[in-house]
């Protein structure tokens, strides 16, 4: 993928997805995956998962996964385009919020938005886990390891990043 048209389409597509994905970037992952993997086959499901995992293990805010994805898809141009898609809407809208001095957003509306969308956000989180898990579908060892990790995270207070490191070692030793 290197045509300019593609980059522009991707920019608008991702901006729109991010604007409508309530609950943050993780909510947008299933649709970004759909776009990159299923619709356009720019990456395989496995590659998409690898890039996502790699971005979480790399120092930097989580949302910078968009920068890494852009760079993997189309080098420096891709990185710049997707970084702008990630941060431009927030910049404009936050500037507006600051300008309007929006400290106490309409309490009733804010409450309705939070309460109404909370179950939707959770549906999106489950979708993210589901989509990523189905990437491992015919790899029973991987699926088992994923659930074991989930249990470990829920039961202990281990920093998840240690587990990602551990996963890398386990992978190299072919345990996973």
């Amino acid at each position, binding site marked *: 993928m290197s045509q300019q048209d593609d980059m522009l389409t991707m920019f608008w597509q991702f901006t729109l997805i991010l604007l409508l994905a309530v609950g943050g970037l993780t909510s947008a992952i299933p649709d970004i995956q759909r776009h990159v993997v299923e619709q356009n086959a720019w990456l395989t499901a496995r590659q998409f998962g690898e890039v996502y995992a790699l971005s979480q293990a790399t*120092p930097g805010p989580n949302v*910078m996964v968009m920068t890494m994805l852009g760079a993997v898809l189309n080098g420096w141009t891709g990185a710049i385009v997707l970084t702008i898609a*990630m941060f431009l809407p927030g910049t404009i809208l936050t500037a507006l919020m600051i300008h309007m001095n929006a400290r106490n957003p309409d309490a009733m509306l804010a409450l309705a938005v939070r309460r109404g969308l909370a179950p939707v956000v959770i*549906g999106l*989180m489950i979708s993210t886990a589901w989509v990523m898990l189905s990437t491992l579908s015919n790899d029973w060892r991987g699926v088992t*390891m994923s659930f074991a990790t989930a249990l470990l995270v829920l039961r202990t207070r281990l920093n998840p990043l240690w587990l990602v490191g551990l996963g*890398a070692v386990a992978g190299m030793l072919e345990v996973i």
Partner: protein
Amino acid sequence: MPDTSPASGPPATKEIITPWMIYLLYTKITLLGFGGTMFWLRRSMIEDRKWVTEAEFVEMFTVAQLVPGGANLYNLSLMLGHRFAGVRGAVAAGLGFISVPFFVMVTVALLYLEYGEQPLVNKALTGMFTVVVGLMIANAYSMAKAVPRRLRPWLFTLLTFTAIGAARWPLVSVMLLLAPFAVSVAWRDIAGERVAAAKAASATAGEAK
């Protein structure tokens, strides 16, 4: 309505905060990353430097979360930067959040393209991916536990999952249909609860007389 929010008072600190200090602090926070940007943001802003109070931080985060676009912490950073040093402070915060991590991410991406297919690297990536999937499952589970055990919230969760996760319909269309519906239902509920609460209050007041 009088503005009584803590953000309207003088800043929590008397220290003069320059845009450069903001830029450096954000660069540090984002690169520490380990343990989550939010964790280091809170620790350095509230505990270490005392640039903001806890209440002010929470209030700004609430507003930042309402901004669409998916970059909640970035939005919060802009607000904090603006609070400390005006527009230049906001720009410094935004640049601090993005600039250095940008190059780190691109470098890692280029390394991935170069070496991602090498057997040992590829095995490590598979292991990392497996763990990250586990983290996502844990995340989804802890969030789902917070859904009230009533039919309607779960119906919305199920609808969303069916449309996005299972059927893989486009998020944009699904959200445009589902979000207004979910919010208006919640709106009606809240309005109903308030009427009920007001009635109960006036009933108690009547009894007191």
